């Protein structure tokens, strides 16, 4: 027999589990390191015979399992308590009890995926379809009921004839020389292959398009989209004038409409009296509405400093003697009807809010021109709270 350069390994078959255990022990004792035992099912005690220790794969499970657990626990806490704080069922923002079930599930999920994928892909280096041992008679017999030993040519003390004799002396049958598979050349960029890819791509896109857009396209609940009605501002042949939108009957009054009877009167301020009490709550509302609607032109403190930078005529200061002298009814009339460049705010600001704004304006005016008694009041407040209320 001539030496074969492509020799990968020498394999021998054994009949019974006892024989293979002995053979594995002897091979190990003879000093071979690159050998393997192939059995149709795991044989008890083989790890010890081959001198293999405990599998360390448990650490993979442990690491990924706990990593997953910690991650998901913190993640749930972050979403529920920090990113979008959200109280559910009267529970605290961080109800860790309720996170335990999902934490457990994710622990198991991460641990098991890492273990199985890690075992197959990293520990075993699978898939490995072109291993030389495949398609040999040896593996076919092992698949059914034989037990085999292979000693690889890579082993430092490998000598073909010696190994053959050795395996025979152990009682091995059907010694087989397993060769490296011949290198196959795969030309990726063959014209045929490219053509094949193009055809597949075309067929797939066409098929997907047809399937999704024509065959499978169903609008669920489409009766909500296609109702038998006419939309406003559209045409209809139901009415003689062709308009879908109808004008209200003459004399119709909108719900909750309250007429403003002082429109255009010479002195509307006379009958108009402020019906509100300047409570703290009301003043807060007045401040809010003032800042929203009035301050762009009149300024945040009603001092006439417009924020509109000349895009619109600036409003006058409200601290002038003339305006301080206005009655509440007069200001109300101005807000309601507008004056000079100022438009009517009747539609933006409801009635109570207009009065609240007026109360707030009075507060601003008083703050600009305080009475001596006001200082006294502030001093007393400071004493009570212990702070400097002026600042």
């Amino acid at each position, binding site marked *: 027999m001539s030496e074969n350069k492509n020799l990968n390994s020498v394999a021998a078959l054994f009949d019974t589990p006892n024989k293979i255990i002995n053979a594995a022990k002897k091979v190990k004792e003879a000093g071979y390191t690159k050998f393997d035992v*192939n059995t149709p099912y795991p044989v*008890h005690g083989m790890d010890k*015979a081959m001198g293999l220790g405990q599998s360390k794969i448990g650490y993979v499970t442990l690491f990924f399992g706990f990593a997953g657990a910690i991650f998901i626990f913190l993640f749930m806490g972050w979403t529920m308590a920090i990113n*979008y704080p959200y109280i559910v069922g009267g529970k605290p923002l961080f109800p860790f009890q309720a996170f335990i079930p999902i934490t457990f599930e994710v622990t198991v999920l991460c641990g098991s995926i890492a273990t199985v994928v890690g075992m197959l892909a990293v520990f*075993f280096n699978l898939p490995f379809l072109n291993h030389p*041992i495949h398609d040999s008679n040896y593996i076919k017999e092992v698949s059914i*009921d034989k037990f085999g030993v292979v000693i690889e040519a890579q082993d430092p003390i490998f000598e073909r004839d010696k190994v053959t004799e050795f395996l025979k002396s152990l009682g091995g049958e059907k010694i087989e020389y397993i060769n490296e598979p011949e290198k196959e050349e795969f030309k990726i960029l063959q014209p045929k292959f490219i053509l094949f890819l193009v055809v597949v791509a075309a067929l797939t896109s066409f098929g997907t398009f047809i399937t999704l857009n024509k065959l499978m396209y169903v609008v669920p609940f489409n009766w909500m989209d296609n109702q038998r009605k006419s939309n406003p501002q559209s045409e209809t042949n139901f009415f003689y004038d062709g308009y879908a939108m109808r004008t209200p009957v003459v004399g119709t009054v909108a719900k909750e409409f309250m007429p403003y009877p002082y429109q255009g009167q010479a002195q509307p301020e006379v009958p108009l009296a402020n019906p509100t009490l300047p409570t703290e709550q009301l003043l807060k509302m007045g401040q809010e509405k003032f800042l929203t609607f009035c301050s762009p032109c009149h300024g945040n403190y009603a001092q006439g400093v417009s924020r509109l930078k000349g895009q619109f005529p600036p409003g006058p200061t409200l601290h002038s003697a003339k305006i301080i002298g206005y009655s509440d009814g007069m200001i109300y009339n101005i807000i309601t009807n507008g004056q000079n460049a100022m438009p009517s705010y009747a539609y933006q600001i409801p009635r109570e809010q207009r009065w609240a704004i007026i109360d707030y304006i009075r507060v601003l005016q008083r703050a600009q021109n305080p009475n001596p008694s006001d200082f006294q009041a502030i001093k007393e407040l400071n004493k009570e709270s212990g702070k400097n209320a002026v600042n």
Partner: protein
Amino acid sequence: MNIDYTKELALVEGNPRLADIDEIITRPLTQPPTRKYYIALSISSTALLIGAYSLWLTLYYGIGMWGNNIPVGWAFDITNFVFWIGIGHAGTLISAILFLLRQRWRTGIARFAEGMTIFAVMTAGIFPVIHTGRPWLAGYLIPYPNQHLLWPNFVSPLLWDVFAVSTYFTVSLMFWYMGLIPDFAILRDQTVNKIKKTIYSFFSLGWRHSNRHWRHYEKTYMIMAGLATPLVLSVHTIVSFDFAVSLIPGWHTTIFPPYFVAGAIYSGFAMVMTVLILVRKVFDMENIITLNHLERMAKVMLLTGSLVAYSYLMEFFIAWYSQIPAEQYDFWARVVGPYRWAWYFMISCNALIPQLIWFKKIRRSVTVLFIISICANIGMWFERFVIIVQSLSRDYLPSSWHMFTPTLVDFGVLTGSFGLFFTLVLLFAKTMPVISIVETKSVLEGAQPTVHGGSDHE
């Protein structure tokens, strides 16, 4: 018959050789399907088509097609979900818990039961999705940074369900596939058909029965069993949380988690029993799935059935003991109320009929076991029906009490779920080895060495 306690019962009968095992188990894969198989397949796929049509009606017109109405907002949909998830539990119990308990008789039935787990979970998974009414929005259940800047509500048990069921499906699938790899390698090495060989090579990933692999493989199997065991408990526990964290009378009771798990295992074993009795007959596997297997499965059914009966007893006792009128009324209404027929089904099929298994003659009679297993399936479906529909229809306010009447579409979807499950089971039985070849070989007599690898340590 007297048992010899000094020896373990033989797990495989007829003393076959290793090579015979291959032949017996792969026979359904190599022979063309028989007429019986086609008849079975046509029945199951007809049921599947009925289900598909009912589902289409549901999706097109909305869940108004079902009988659900307030206050009975959950009815057939959730009943079916809990029923099918429960069926799945037997598979993991057999493959994981019995593995950890070193019950080696599991080898004959593990693969099939695992397969049934996966199909049952697939069937079950349909229901929570369709019962939302707008299944195309189910993607929002996944916590990803979406355009609404919203996260799912992690405090809701319904979201726990999403995690539990999807984890359960993934882990079961991996467990099942891991067991199949060496078997695919065996099929790959034995087949002469080129197409089959390509398929088997692909799925076997180039497995070569190496002992350097086996040692990690066995450890991983152990770890997976260790992870799957608490997982299987957690899944039905979380399903029970769906009910038990609420305040509906009859739902809020602390025994629900173990009670649901026991019930799930009971119904799962019943389904495995039903299907395996048919499979061993049709495929001539009486030597591998022996009468001893069936007897042991019957004993597990007896145990879990009795646990379920214990839970019924506890519920009734504590409902009385708590002295809360709503609870007391709800349980009383189960016995004498409008749904009492469902309760009678549930009690007789789950608590009383399994007690027959105490008798050895009944345990060893295949026909009677078959009937008992069918009863158990019916009983467990009604148990969920009683819990869900009865409790919802009779809650705190008598003015809002309302009966539930199922529609034809409800029954269609239920039929379809059976159709889907059995179609998948039938296809599985013809395409993959339904019994683990490797594991069966390893438990044959004389398969393990009498000498040990270690030099001095025993």
